[in-house]
């Protein structure tokens, strides 16, 4: 076993901003990674897409730099981006050591002084860009709307995970400038944020700079945590028609929240079912029977409750009902017997290697800075790295089997068949035709 760790120092400024510094002097770069604890789960039905729209508006300028966010940073050699999901929004820059001041100045200016620079025109342009993004990534992409149908069936309309993070097209079109400003006032301030500096920087200097640039920004209100419980009472069977050549079946279940008991077990189950040629579903469906062309499964770990998603694309000439019955047989076997010792060893070897690989980069999505923020914001424990790996090391055949038995129930899941237009007969039996946009 490898002993690996992700050391850091943490302080909280008087305005509530968490600041974490991780030193790594191998390459003269520093990753600046800022998380706001706001995502699409903080929106309301009929008013969706705000958190993601903000990810766009945050690059349009702030009071003291009332112009595009990219040019000064790119002139300094930075790489930068941002992303939004159900639970959080992250913004990051990877800069040469010489440009840390600049990156912190820019990040703090848009935290403290965004609204004076946010014009109606900028808002309207970015609203159009987002509508284009939605068309490009969802509406004009095969299977792009499958997740919309799955989320809508898995979560009731008032549940904060019912909608896609990018939002509903009609909600985006209906957004009002004043509502956008109000959303910023509620969520984008030190008390709801966490800053990580990782790379070629001393901890003492990191804290000094954080204080200098963020220290005088008012704390702002601490938003109340979103909570919602949900259970499926039965199995939902749906069909969606799409511009696709080959039909695909999806199965989705509610599963334990991120870092909760059994979350790691569900991750291992996904691996056992669908990662690599030796995984159970790939081997049976693609390798032996040749009735499918690809399989995938993942535990989509989220803050207030996760879902486990499985997807299999059928080979030409094989209806989804045939594929579904083989999937169910394999699921039943896992739930009855659990993984073999050998399968578990294999998954563990992969999990351990991937924990090491994650230590290779300081910045970007999934780099060390992002990892520390995930632990700090979603676990309130930036020191969680070793314990996180420990969750996987502690898994046994019995705990994996038990998790499968508890969560992967046939009578509490969403089954969705996506079929070529006009070919409903290829879908799973007893499915209701739905239409989403």
């Amino acid at each position, binding site marked *: 076993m*490898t002993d690996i760790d992700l050391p850091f120092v943490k302080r909280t400024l008087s305005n509530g901003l968490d600041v974490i510094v991780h030193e790594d002097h*191998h*390459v*003269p*770069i520093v990753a600046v990674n800022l998380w706001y604890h706001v995502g699409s789960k903080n929106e309301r039905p009929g008013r969706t897409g705000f958190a993601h729209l903000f990810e766009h508006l945050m690059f349009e300028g702030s*009071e003291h*730099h009332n112009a*595009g966010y*990219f*040019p*000064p940073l*790119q*002139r*300094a*050699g*930075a*790489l930068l981006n941002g992303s939004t999901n159900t639970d959080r929004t992250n913004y990051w820059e*990877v800069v*040469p*050591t*010489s440009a840390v*001041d*600049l990156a912190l*100045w820019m990040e*703090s*200016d848009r935290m403290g002084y965004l609204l004076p620079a946010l014009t109606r025109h900028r808002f309207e342009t970015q609203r159009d*860009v987002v509508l*284009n993004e939605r*068309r*490009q*990534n969802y*509406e004009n*992409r*095969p299977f792009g709307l499958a997740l919309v149908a799955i989320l809508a069936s898995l979560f009731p309309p008032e549940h904060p995970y019912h909608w896609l993070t990018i939002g509903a097209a009609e909600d985006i079109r209906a957004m009002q400038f004043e509502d956008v400003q109000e959303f910023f006032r509620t969520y984008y301030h030190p008390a709801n944020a966490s800053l990580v500096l990782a790379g070629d920087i001393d901890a003492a200097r990191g804290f*000094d700079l954080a204080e*200098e640039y963020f*220290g*005088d920004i008012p704390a702002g209100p601490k938003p109340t945590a979103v909570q919602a419980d949900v259970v499926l009472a039965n199995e939902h069977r749906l069909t969606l028609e799409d*511009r*696709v*050549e*080959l039909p695909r079946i999806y199965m989705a279940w509610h599963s334990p929240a991120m870092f909760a008991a059994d979350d790691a077990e569900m991750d291992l189950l996904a691996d056992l079912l669908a990662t*690599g*040629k*030796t995984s159970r579903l790939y081997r049976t469906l*693609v*390798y032996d029977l040749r009735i499918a*062309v690809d399989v995938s499964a993942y535990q989509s770990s989220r803050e207030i409750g996760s879902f486990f998603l499985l997807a299999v*694309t059928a*080979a030409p000439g094989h209806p989804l009902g045939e594929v579904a019955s083989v999937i169910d047989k394999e699921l039943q076997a896992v739930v009855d017997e659990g993984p073999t010792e050998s399968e578990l*060893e*294999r998954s563990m*070897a992969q999990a*351990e*290697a*991937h924990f*090491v*690989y994650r230590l*290779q*980069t300081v910045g970007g999505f999934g780099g060390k800075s992002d990892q520390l923020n995930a632990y700090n914001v979603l676990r309130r424990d930036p020191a969680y790295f070793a314990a996180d790996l420990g969750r996987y090391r502690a898994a046994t055949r019995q705990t994996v089997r038990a998790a499968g038995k508890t969560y992967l129930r046939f009578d509490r899941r969403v089954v969705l068949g996506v079929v070529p237009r006009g070919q409903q007969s290829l879908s799973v039996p007893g499915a209701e035709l739905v239409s989403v946009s």
Partner: protein
Amino acid sequence: MTADRSRLPDVGPDPQFTFPIIVRHTLENGLKVRTVEHPSVPVISFIVQVDGGSGSDPSPHEGLAAVVADMIDEGTGSLSALDVSDALARIGADYDVDVGADVTMFGLTTLIRFADRGASLLASLVTRPSMREDDFGRVRQLRLDRLRQLKDLAPAVAERAFLRLLYGAHPYGHLPIGNDRSLREIALPHVVDFHESLYRPDRSTLVVAGAMSHREMLDVVRDAFGSWTVTQRDASVSPAVVDASVDGHARLAIVARDGAAQSELRIGQLAARRNTPDYPALLLMNAVLGGQFVSRVNLKLREEKGYTYGARTGFDWRRGVAPFVLQASVHTAATADAIKDALGEIEGMTSSRPPSDDELMLARASLTRGYPRNFETAQQVARGVAQLALYDLPDTYFEEFIPKVNAVTADDVMAATRRHLDPGKLTSLIVGDHAVVGDSLATLGLGTPEMLPSES
């Protein structure tokens, strides 16, 4: 201390960075080896680069190089395809295959304690694949199914049609996956023959980067790859002929996709080889025109007009003449206007709108100041070194890159752009709803669009 918000903070002098030192070795069998010490995390990365990619596909077997590459992890010695997958997983390996136009690359990254196992597994796969009929049938069928699925993906449809428009019948004129007809014609003997002809130690390069000394890495690869021998036979397949004509004329083509929510656009022409002395100037031109978020094309089409989620330009580099391409997915109603704006930006870059001082400074800085971050992981370093081998660039390339880019002037950029780009030769392609956009295209003055089939 409180921040001074009256002005942006100064950026200090660029930090010193020592680029990786590459050591070259040649094994007795002719295999060229390059090692790089990369001590940060206990990880090691191997890349085997075989001379020959999709450009070596012998007609009518387009797609053969990719099928061969796919067959590599389908079994070796006593290991079945499933055993190989299992063996890779047990060392936590990240295995990947990249079939390019000129070469095929096999990468394997693993923990340092599995260095020997990783190297010997990779060597066994690349040099002694089982090539069984049953595995071949499955692999080929999966590629045929994949091809069918690609018909649903507008970017893939566009990429296929655009390569054909630019290169015609040249070996670069098809995607690595080939087409339905060619895949069906490929049989196992073709696969075996291709492998024996091109997968040879004397035509391959092995790059290793990891937390070990040069000596240790050399020992690992000698043990693993030392027994690879050249098959004593005449090669029936050879690496691609790289010449391609850069002739062309302004034209417009469309692949009809009824009901498409957006139009997928490609605008470009054959431009230059990767090893042209104009390379730094062309990189700068691209950064100004469309290589970055703040480039002219994205600012115009996304930030000013709101036509798209993003528009960008780039070179798809090859040993032979490579294309320069602008790509964007635009709202259907904005198709003709977006093309007009895009053509205008390219035209401006070759004539009336040379890069301003500010644009050039930004482009230079973004290429050079961020350069060290490309050397963070063993895999990044190995890939960088493999590129040097691919294009026959010197080992001093990395350290010379920044001074070379900094030496380029605005005049150099304009001269290089004019040498390699000609607005009169640009091909524009739309994959979109012809019924909706058809009439608006007349305003472009490019004549009646050529209608292309959505082939596979």
